[in-house]
């Protein structure tokens, strides 16, 4: 059980990137963490086993996420901060994204976010408190060539979060959209390839530069692969 004064975090996408760093900092501060991930194998390295609950769950699996929230509330007595962080990026021109790729990124980045909200809100509502950190991106406010599908999911999260914030404010629950730029996480280092259309007009690659960490500014769909990465 967490102490009266320390917070209890519920973090999705906790195995890497921003999620893992959040978990590490919270644990270092003596706060309790329910770390949710499809791969919890490396979470024990964070230490503080008395404060850490590692839960294997895929945010696309509503039942698993609900069980994760119940486990967190049961172990620590409450949930104070929800980092709705799990997600990934898909890099490639809009035209290149196959139907399966488009639906897959919405399944994780939008419907996964909704699954987490549905799982934790009963706990927060009962407490009349809590703070939800919605994982967005600066691509939730603007988009550049090559990030259309990623941006579409983040715009969706921004829209639903605007409404959510107003809906839950009377219940004492706060919502903040976190909009990172490109940061030093496995976002660019954990890329998967996906087949894309070849009918393109230029031969420039759409992939972000690993060296600079920035996406190219020019439309560059000619790559035969669009790129997928865990999202900030």
């Amino acid at each position, binding site marked *: 059980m967490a102490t009266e004064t320390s917070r209890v975090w519920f973090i999705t996408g906790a195995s890497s990137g921003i999620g893992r760093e959040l978990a590490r900092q919270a644990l270092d501060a003596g706060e309790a963490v329910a770390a949710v991930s499809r791969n919890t194998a490396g979470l024990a390295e964070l230490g503080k086993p008395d404060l850490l609950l590692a839960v294997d769950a895929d945010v696309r699996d509503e039942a698993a996420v609900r069980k994760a929230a119940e486990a967190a509330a049961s172990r620590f007595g409450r949930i104070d901060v929800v980092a709705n962080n799990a997600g990934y990026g898909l890099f490639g021109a809009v035209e290149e994204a196959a139907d399966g790729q488009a639906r897959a990124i919405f399944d994780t980045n939008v419907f996964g976010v909704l699954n987490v909200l549905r799982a934790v809100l009963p706990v927060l509502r009962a407490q009349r408190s809590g703070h939800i*950190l919605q994982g967005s991106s*600066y691509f939730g406010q*603007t988009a550049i060539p090559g990030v259309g599908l990623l941006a579409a999911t983040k715009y969706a999260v921004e829209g639903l979060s605007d409404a959510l914030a107003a809906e839950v404010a009377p219940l004492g629950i706060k919502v*903040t959209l976190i909009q*990172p730029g490109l*940061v030093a996480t496995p976002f660019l280092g954990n890329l998967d390839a996906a087949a894309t259309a070849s009918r393109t007009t230029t031969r420039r690659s759409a992939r972000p530069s690993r060296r600079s960490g920035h996406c190219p500014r020019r439309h560059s769909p000619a790559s035969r692969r669009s790129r997928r990465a865990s999202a900030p």
Partner: protein
Amino acid sequence: VASDDPPLRLALGATGASEMRAALTARLADLDKWADVTQAAGA
């Protein structure tokens, strides 16, 4: 999360923040530029 009055949006990183500012400014400029058409469309 320690704030009693946290923001609805929190940009992290100077590059992203400047990109967002440019995008939002451009959006406002479009709204202003086409205000006559907007108003003429009624409610």
